[in-house]
């Protein structure tokens, strides 16, 4: 028993030690609830903290769906002041739940109209990314095979067994790709396309992580499929995090018409926040040049502010889609469950 008490005291002192190191002065805090993929540079965030004399705390949990879920379940008694990371596939649902307070950022007029999907201004667009098929450049080159350029191409016999796709019920890129096929083939045609894709040996993984690292041939997992549903920015990440370092990307995205789906991520002030003024300032900050230019290397998404400079790896290797598939958030919110269910019935059973 004595040992237990000593152990316990030791643990507390350790924890106390790391806490006191964290916050030397008690500045007011602003809490940002977000998903696991969120990141920001130390320099960028500390500038905001100094200018506003505030300490920013981030709460992260799971992917975009899980994080939003958390925000919905804590409606009225929010976990924080700002929520970042609701995307256009979840947008309508989030607005319906009424978890956000309206706010019009003074920086909003520099954001292109195409990104401003919420006319009620409950949420503000911050970044976007294209979910595209990535391919293993060397694999196609050594075999002298042309890279497919349309969704229809993927059902051709020469591409049999070459594509791995994520489960739209679990993975957000998986859902985005499903939505791209619905947008392109229409509600009556997309399941037919998927049936043909299945006959052509499409491989299904549950999440991005397995699909990319286990199945995809150009990743370090060295899997069997040379094509994977990932992001337009992934080739840039492959260069930045290459080992050994390399000058060119091992992968590239297929960006033909309708082959990519554009995800736009939004931020909003959580209703019930005690810090609405500061929360508004944080939204402005997210649209500021320093944060916008920080986005690509931190989150591997693209800034919505067209004037933000992109890192060299992005301009060289990460091509965004010129004509991505798009769908309005209401249609998605109304049908996502049905489409996922129908897809599951058709493809998995």
């Amino acid at each position: 028993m004595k040992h237990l008490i000593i152990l316990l005291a030791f643990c507390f002192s350790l924890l106390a030690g790391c806490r006191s190191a964290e916050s030397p002065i008690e500045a007011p805090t602003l809490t940002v609830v977000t998903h696991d993929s969120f990141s920001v540079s130390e320099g960028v965030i500390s500038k905001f903290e100094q200018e506003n004399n505030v300490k920013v705390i981030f709460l992260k949990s799971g992917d975009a769906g899980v994080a939003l879920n958390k925000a919905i379940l804590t409606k009225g008694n929010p976990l924080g002041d700002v929520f970042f990371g609701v995307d256009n596939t979840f947008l309508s649902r989030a607005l319906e739940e009424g978890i956000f307070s309206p706010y019009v950022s003074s920086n909003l007029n520099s954001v292109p109209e195409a990104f401003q999907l919420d006319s009620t201004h409950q949420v503000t667009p911050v970044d976007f990314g294209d979910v595209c098929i990535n391919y293993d450049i060397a694999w196609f080159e050594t075999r002298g095979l042309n890279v497919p350029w349309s969704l229809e191409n993927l059902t051709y016999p020469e591409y049999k067994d070459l594509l791995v796709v994520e489960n739209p019920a679990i993975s957000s890129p998986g859902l985005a790709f499903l939505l791209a096929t619905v947008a392109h083939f229409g509600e009556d045609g997309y399941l037919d396309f998927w049936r043909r894709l299945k006959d052509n040996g499409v491989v299904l993984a549950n999440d991005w992580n397995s699909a990319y690292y286990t199945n995809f041939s150009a990743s370090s997992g060295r899997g069997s499929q040379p094509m994977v549903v990932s992001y337009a920015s992934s080739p840039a990440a492959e260069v930045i995090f290459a080992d050994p370092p390399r000058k060119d990307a091992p992968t590239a995205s297929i960006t033909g018409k309708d082959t990519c789906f554009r995800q736009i991520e939004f931020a909003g002030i959580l209703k019930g926040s005690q810090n609405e003024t500061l929360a508004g300032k944080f939204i402005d900050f997210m649209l500021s040049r320093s944060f916008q230019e920080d986005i690509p290397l931190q989150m591997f998404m693209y800034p919505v502010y067209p004037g933000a400079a992109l890192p060299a790896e992005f301009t060289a290797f990460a091509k965004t889609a010129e004509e991505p598939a798009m769908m309005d958030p209401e249609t998605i919110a109304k049908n996502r469950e049905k489409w996922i269910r129908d897809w599951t019935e058709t493809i998995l059973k």
Partner: protein
Amino acid sequence: MNNPEGRGAPEVTGSGSTWKTWGLLALPLFFLVVFFYLPIINTFKFAFTNTSGRPISPIDLAGIWRPLAFTFYQAALSTGLTLVIGIPAALLFSRFFFKGKRILRTLVMVPFILPTVVVAAGFNSLLGPRGWLNLALMSILNLSTPPIDLLYSLAAILIAHVFYNTSVLIRLVGSAWSRLDIQLEQAGRVLGATGWRNFVEVTFPLLRPSILSAILLVFLFDFTSFGVILLLGGPQFATLEVVIYIQSMHLLNFPAAAVLSGVQMICTITIIVLMARLAGNTIVPLAPRLREEGMRAAGSIKEKVFVFGMVCLLFLIFLVPLLALILRSITRLEFDPGQGNAFQTTFTPVYYQELFTNRRGSIFYVPPIEAMRNSLVYAAMAVVISVFLGMLVSIAHSGMNSKSKWSEVLIALPLGTSAVSLGLGLLLLFNGFNWGAALAVMLVPIAHSVVAMPFFIRTVQPALVSIPITFKHSAAVLGASASRIWREITLPILWRPILAGALFAFTISLGEFGATSFLARPEFPTMPIAISRFLTVPGALNYGQAMAMSTLLMLICAVCVFAIDRLE
């Protein structure tokens, strides 16, 4: 064997003891009510009221039945397979001396802490399309495609479950087996029972409580399996847990998720009650034995073959995947694009070096030492909480009639609840309280303890119950006080099971991911969380760092398990 005299149980008779039992149970039950039952009930309430007028999309019976049937099917298969390997393994550890025993004992415990992402990675680096095995076969047989394709199959699920759970059998059944009075087996042999008959009629009935306990834990573990199904099974396979996750976290269909969670909980309760019934009143007193009394080196040819075969099998199952992972963390695999499948491997320390650099200047960068410290501090606190509360429960239960052990159900139920719902429940309930960062940090070890406590109790309780009451009576007659009896009789006998139980709590906490991902503050991530962060971004360095961090987690776990085992 069913001689009622000398049983451990019938100590409780008067109402005074009942009060004592209640007193002991009060704190653990209070803990569970506050940190498990209230959060879960609260989440259920949310699920049904917080739908903002959206029509509840009903989930049809088939939507429940299919995953339910598969859940039972794979759990039964996995448990069966685990028994087939685990029982002989328990025999091996409890009866034989052999070279490398200590290392093997440590090794079999390591999988228990590994987060599923890591197990999936280890599996992939061994058996995957470009795993070592396939690479070797491809170069030996000169094939152009990988010959072994286990990815996304039932076989992969089963192998992973056996990999995870064999340690439960070895620890639980093995520790009971080594405590078994060797004279009973010898008596059987003298009376003419051959090896097998001796096992069936003497050893097995004596081991029954701990075997059933182990089966219960393993079955529930497989029953609520999530990560393994998701990562290794692929989209074709869905357990209830997976469907609950999809419904609640991705379709935001909270009522459906709540109904499914309800079904899962009812199943769990049924299983626990059923197992308690099966266990019945079969507890037989086991006089404490000298530590290595029943141990011997393999003698006959048959025994030698058994020991050699088992050791090889266990090394194959436990060491090889771990080695594959370690190897992967220091190897760079380069494929020559011009050569088809030709590849070259070079050793590199770069992934470990990279762990110490904050390449992107991110505020969420965590040095590996810090992640390690977080993990160890959380684990130590979880051990303290679960050992303390678990001891109270075990003592209370040992004084209770086994038929009235409804509290056993209450305490085991967390095992059948998804880690994600537990994390979410705790977060929602305690979100309203403004109780400072220190206590918010405590939620992580508290969640770990809720899960670890049943493991501790299942390890300690059978041992506690099996102490012959005559020991205590004799001591009392000789004038020993209650506390002295506890100190000088009970504790020395219980020391080993307590250590084994603490070890479970420690490893469960080190490896827990589901609830932690909800509760851990981003500035205090644990090692499993740090690993999963690396795997969300493409790039060889990120993959390599995940492997390196996993290797560190494994090594830390191995060192701790080894040290705790030494205490014995």
